[in-house]
């Protein structure tokens, strides 16, 4: 097996992975970086983010306000020391991006502009039209090209971490061009593989969001934290689930039901006027807005369309000029994919799975409990997002914690790395390769990859959607256990080696089943409602019992073992989340 030696191996080349790579390269040109991704970096899902990235920049804003918005937005499940660090670093990271060429939208006098965003008291979302993620990703990727110490391994699918003697010292990955398994021997490893929306049938996420890094860390013994907290973005297009940015509402867009009524005022987010008004109505937090949709649907107030039940996003009053300048891409998307022009017509939308608040457990330095292993971005859970993420905090999170992961992984590689037993490491790599070989050799036992994926999608939607019940979650837990068993019998039609995407799909379904399993069990065990985890049978928040993070531990063929970790509280005691009138 070919062995590739490096100092820091980074799995995933989206916003967090690229930022980490640049951080290493800038801090120490002696250190080699291997940037490993199953897709070319420009395809990473950071590219699809639209609205913007939050960072305090206005005179009338403060770190305290950003902190408070984030902590209350997260329903007090955020680790406050991490949030303090995050809000402080945010403006510096966003300025750094600007220095690297990011084409932020500007005010007339040439300063960076900001737009209102959900759950934020003051405007602090830096934006690049409505393609902020695209511009951030391309800026980072293009900037990374100037560092000779960053070697890229594009279209390498990482399969397993190598942890020997309690320390992470590398990984195995399939070179998709040849089908060959290779081992990366590294002094430290950073996972930046993104989220897992593809577990659900309707999602804003691209096909590559398949929980691979989460599953790798989980199987290696790192707990997955707060997995039950799945964010539904309030405004996805029908059918495809394509994202219509929160920026639509930031620019003044409103949501109405079949009666043309701005229904959010019935859900403690009003009064409806004056509008726009920060932290009220359509600029409330995402969990509340998605939950309101569910209630409207129960009441029969949603609009029946050929794609299912929807509400309407009304942007007509913004005018063509504003829409073309601030929201050009979403106009194009609505026109192309559902033949609707937001300048003149109401746009049907509904909540769609968008983001995983939970993920690989890390501390404030992006370090997992395994020495030498770090994680950052959506795949990780520090936690700064708690039970519900505010829009535009995630893009900033990539930069702050991607950067921190890079610096700390570099420090570990320089100062704390101890070489492992070579023979033992190689043995692990060979075992990883054997598992792939076994998959290739398996005969048809009646299970298909697309069949398993569909069954997983359906059960996730039923059991761990916007509102959950004990019975439905139990069913989903049982179903997922069954799917995991059946997955061990899945076979490949395609036995080729060169760019075998059926193999990749099969591996991805395996990753998603692991992550899904932790979501269902974590949700079942949390007997309260908080943020985006809402239960019809336990409707109140219970700080007495549940001001804690859920930790799901890998348990082989059995169900995940669940325990809890206290949330770090510094200055903000849990209180009522207030939006609308008084906010």
């Amino acid at each position, binding site marked *: 097996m070919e062995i590739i030696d490096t100092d820091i191996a980074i799995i995933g080349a989206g916003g967090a992975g690229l930022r980490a790579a640049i951080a290493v390269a800038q801090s120490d040109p002696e250190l080699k970086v291997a940037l490993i991704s199953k897709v070319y970096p420009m395809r990473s899902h950071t*590219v*699809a983010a639209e609205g913007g990235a939050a960072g305090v920049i206005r005179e009338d804003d403060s770190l305290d306000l950003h902190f408070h918005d984030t902590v209350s937005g997260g329903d007090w499940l955020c680790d406050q020391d991490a949030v303090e660090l995050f809000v402080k670093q945010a403006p510096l990271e966003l300025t750094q991006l600007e*220095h690297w*060429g990011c084409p932020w939208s500007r005010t007339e006098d*040439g*300063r960076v502009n900001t737009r209102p965003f959900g759950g934020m008291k003051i405007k602090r979302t830096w934006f690049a039209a409505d393609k902020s993620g695209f511009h951030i990703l391309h800026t980072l990727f*293009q900037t990374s090209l100037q560092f000779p110490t960053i070697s890229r391994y594009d279209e390498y699918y990482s399969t397993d971490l190598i942890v020997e003697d309690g320390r992470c010292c590398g990984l195995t990955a399939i070179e998709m*061009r040849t089908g060959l398994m290779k081992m990366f021997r590294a002094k430290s490893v950073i996972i930046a593989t993104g989220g897992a929306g593809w577990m659900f049938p309707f999602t804003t996420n691209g096909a590559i969001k398949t929980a691979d890094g989460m599953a790798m860390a989980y199987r290696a013994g790192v707990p997955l934290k707060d997995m039950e907290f799945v964010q539904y973005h309030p405004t996805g297009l029908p059918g495809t689930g394509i994202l219509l940015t929160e920026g639509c509402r930031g620019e003044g867009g409103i949501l109405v039901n079949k009666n043309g009524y701005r229904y959010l005022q019935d859900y403690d987010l009003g009064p409806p006027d004056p509008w726009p008004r920060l932290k009220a109505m359509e600029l409330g937090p995402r969990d509340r807005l998605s939950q309101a949709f569910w209630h409207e649907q129960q009441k029969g107030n949603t609009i029946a369309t050929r794609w299912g039940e929807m509400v309407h996003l009304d942007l007509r009053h913004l005018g063509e000029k504003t829409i073309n300048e601030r929201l050009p891409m979403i106009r194009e998307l609505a026109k192309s994919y559902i033949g609707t022009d937001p300048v003149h017509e109401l746009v049907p939308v509904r909540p769609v799975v968008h983001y995983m608040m939970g993920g690989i457990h890390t501390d404030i330095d992006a370090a997992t409990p395994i020495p030498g292993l770090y994680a950052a971005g959506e795949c990780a859970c520090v936690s700064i997002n708690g039970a519900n993420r505010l829009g535009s905090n995630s893009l900033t999170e990539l930069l702050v914690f991607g950067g921190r992961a890079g610096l700390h992984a570099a420090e570990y590689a320089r100062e704390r790395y101890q070489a492992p037993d070579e023979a033992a490491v190689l043995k692990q790599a060979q075992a990883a390769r054997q598992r792939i070989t076994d998959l290739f050799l398996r005969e048809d036992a009646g299970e298909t990859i697309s069949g398993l994926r569909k069954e997983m999608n359906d059960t996730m939607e039923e059991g761990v959607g916007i509102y959950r019940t004990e019975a439905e979650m139990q069913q989903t837990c049982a179903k997922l256990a069954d799917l995991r068993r059946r997955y061990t019998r899945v076979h490949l039609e395609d036995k080729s080696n060169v760019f075998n995407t*059926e193999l990749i799909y099969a591996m991805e379904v395996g990753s998603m089943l692991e992550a899904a399993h932790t979501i269902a069990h974590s949700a079942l065990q949390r007997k309260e409602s908080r943020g985006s985890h809402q239960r019809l049978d336990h409707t109140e928040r219970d700080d007495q019992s549940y001001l804690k993070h859920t930790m799901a531990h890998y348990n082989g063929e059995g169900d995940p073992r669940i325990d809890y970790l206290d949330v770090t509280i510094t200055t903000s005691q849990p209180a009522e989340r207030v939006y609308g009138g008084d906010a």
Partner: protein
Amino acid sequence: MSYRTIELEVMRFQPENDKKPWFQDYRVPCDEDWVVLDALNYVKDHLDGSLSYRWSCHMAVCGSCGMMIDGEPRLACKTFVRDLPEGKIRIEALNNFPIERDLVVVLDDFMEKLKRVKPYIIRDEQRPLEDGEYRQTPAQLNKFKQYTLCINCCCCYAACPEYALRPEFIGPAALALAHRYNQDSRDCGARLREDVVASDEGIWDCSFADACSQVCPEHVDPAGAIQQMKIAATVSWYQDKLGLRRKTTGGEDK
């Protein structure tokens, strides 16, 4: 949801088995909203798991799914089945690239060229982060904004007759990206990019066929960028000849 059955004629190539590409037919029941990518996904999920192609975002922003559809380089996620003529839909790997497998092409050449044009901000002096952002007015942003929109889908390379003839040509997207940085008020690296950009493999290899701009799904207009760079390079050449050029790259605080 109304369904009609469409016929796809898809290019296949497995280097371990095939000496050259061949075509496979599939019949796909289609929804009226579908794009070609949806049809390919149906094939993959229900008819033939061995078909390989790149895709991810399904919203024309990641650039993965460029391929030849009825002879034109297009994004499969943005090509609506309802807009295509009746009859078989022919799907092939992007022109002018070696085929890795089925609809997946080898992009090494493109990636190398992207890097070669130095697509990052170059300046002598860096402003401290604590001093905030470089000022850039909306007018200054508009000078290069269009050229930032490239999603690296390579449809322009598939359309370019020059790239078809001369693989050394740096090509539309890479050159447009150089122009993006040259036009950015924060950058001072135009001079440093000149060796690559104003070379025989660069702008001077372009004969303004304009095929690239015709197919670009993001309306970047790389052809326009290249012609602007021809003018700039010519002016700069004269300035050199007349001894009028500064030696430094600039980098005064902007």
